[in-house]
């Protein structure tokens, strides 16, 4: 009984699928934007891979400077606390001073009215806007995303962020009219629909690096991307290091279990 019924059910599904094949067009609708879209360029960082990755602290410090002086005008970093930047090689005193340079939301202890106070190491990077409505109002109705997790939250990760920052250009001449950037939009072939609301954020020498590194757009993009790799996963390097210890411990364990397995089975054909 199961087999004839199963046979009929199977034929039902197969018929529906065969009809689906013959009624689905074999040609895709042309996607013009696809032709102009570019794949991200590869960015090599010290924290890459599993072979002795490390934080390039000088680069992360430069990257944080770019974030603070440029990106933070529009983008928040709400998952990162000032205390976290100890990873970047700052001393406790430096962190206190750094935090003090920010005003964070607070309440007036006497009146309960909203107020601000100097930042403490336990505070998080404050947001540039009070709320989403304020952020949209200031940005032509576009919402600048929080950057804490951005290198993990985009396909292509750090490569994509680096490419996007360096990818602004004037639209190609053969770009169809409907793909041309509208008012307040900027052409960037690395962005999914080619036009994004963010204006090119970086210009040569926009920041002055303390260590004398020349602040080209490419250099600043690399540095801030490296910084955002750190903000997305501050435990990345530790993870790889612990991974090695656990892996080699288990490797020895596995070799021992293999030897005891062979030993126990030595007298049994199987």
């Amino acid at each position: 009984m199961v087999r004839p019924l199963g046979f009929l059910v199977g034929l039902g599904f197969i018929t529906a699928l065969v009809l689906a094949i013959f009624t689905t067009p074999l040609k895709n609708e042309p996607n013009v934007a696809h032709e102009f879209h570019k794949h991200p360029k590869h960015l090599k960082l010290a924290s890459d891979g599993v072979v002795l990755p490390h934080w390039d602290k000088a680069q992360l410090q430069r990257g944080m400077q770019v974030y603070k002086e440029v990106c933070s005008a529009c983008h928040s970093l709400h998952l990162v606390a000032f205390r976290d930047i100890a990873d970047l090689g700052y001393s406790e005193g430096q962190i206190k001073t750094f935090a003090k340079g920010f005003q964070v939301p607070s309440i007036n202890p006497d009146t309960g009215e909203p107020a601000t106070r100097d930042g403490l190491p336990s505070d998080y990077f404050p947001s540039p806007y009070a709320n989403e409505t304020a952020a949209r109002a200031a940005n032509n109705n576009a919402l600048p995303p929080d950057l804490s997790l951005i290198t993990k939250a985009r396909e292509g990760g750090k490569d994509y962020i680096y490419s996007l920052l360096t990818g602004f250009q004037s639209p190609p001449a053969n770009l169809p009219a409907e793909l041309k950037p509208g008012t307040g939009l900027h052409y960037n072939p690395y962005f999914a629909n080619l036009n994004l609301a963010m204006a090119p954020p970086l210009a040569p020498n926009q920041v002055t690096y303390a260590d004398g590194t020349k602040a080209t757009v490419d250099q600043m993009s690399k540095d801030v991307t490296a910084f955002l790799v750190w903000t997305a996963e501050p435990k990345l390097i530790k993870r790889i290091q612990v991974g090695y210890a656990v892996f080699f411990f288990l490797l020895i364990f596995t070799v021992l279990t293999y030897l005891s397995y062979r030993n126990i089975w030595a007298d049994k054909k199987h």
Partner: protein
Amino acid sequence: MSFPWAKPYEPTHPLMKWMDEKLPIPRLVYNATGPGYPVPRNLNYFWNFGVLAGAALMIQIITGIVLAMHYAANASVAFNSVEHIMRDVNAGWFIRYAHMNGASMFFIVVYLHIFRGLYYGSYKAPREMVWLLGVVIFLLMMATAFMGYVLPWGQMSFWGAQVITGFFSAIPIVGEPVREWLLGGFVPDNATLNRFFSLHYLLPFVILGVIILHIWALHIPGSSNPTGIEVKDEQDTVPFHPYYTAKDGFGVGVFLLVFVALTFFSPNTLGHADNYIPANSLSTPAHIVPEWYFLPFYAILKAFTFNFLWIDAKLWGVIAMFASIALLFFLPWLDSSPIKSSNYRPLYRIFFWILVADVLLLGWCGMQPAEQPWVILSQLGAIYYFAHFLVILPIVSRIERPLPMPNSITEAVLAKHATDVKSVSATA
């Protein structure tokens, strides 16, 4: 129940004797996984995956309990509480990545376990009940994994919940009310997150219960083996302990090595970038894709694009997707061949490997956008999937002429060693 030559449990220490009279747990363990449980001597490495699935479940339960101590199931803070675990909780990043990749490892070993069963006919008499309970476990795992993926409350969590609960709305008349009842609202929101968290915590223990039944049902006939010939006498078997405890110990070592490599060196490879964006009901991701272990079924769902008879394409897809798993319940009766092992089934063996390739193809198609050639490939893949189980398998099991089989497990083992010795001396 066990074989008559099973070693009886005879406690010698007074404490163990006392225990045996009051609560004979040591006796149970001795007879279930100890020297008192005879197992075929010829099991290959594919028989490790049951124990590995058990290990994966234990890892999920332990890491999950710790995560629940730090996670907050509230739509306004869930996403940030996961990041709190990743950044501020001691070793939280490890526990969270282990749980995330542990789900993938669980499915990898369970899929290998299932395909082992398909190749060696483990679903056939006298082990139908073992197979049926296994399919129940598989369904529970899928429900648990789906609800777990919703908990971080990222974009894929939200939209995955939206799409999967949307399956129910394809059912005429009652579909939409059922969906709202499941979600506790019109869209996934706080009520959904809370109930999914509650059920995600409950279901693993239900799985554990069904696993106990699965093992109980297995221990009545005992394990099958690569020849598919039932155990005849004592020399066909070895005691579970120390023989298979040692082999499983080695298996667990290899499993953990792969697990650790994935967790520490590449923890986000099997996930989606979109799930690091907080859930937003106003912004739909460009491609909504489920986790990799659901992709073959997702491809079957999407393959139905034609309103056939009075059923529309979406409902066909949903019915077919559920049917693609439900048909596994009927497998012991769809395959009427008395031969278990595909080693002796020359015709079925070919179709088995086509099925493996077909499921991999469906998985690949499930990942792709709804464009050609992926649509037609998933349609062809789905045709083969249903044809395999419902048409080809019943016919093949009738017309196939099996290869000559040895008389017993021991004979097969000795024959194998004889040819090994011959080939060694021939090359020497």
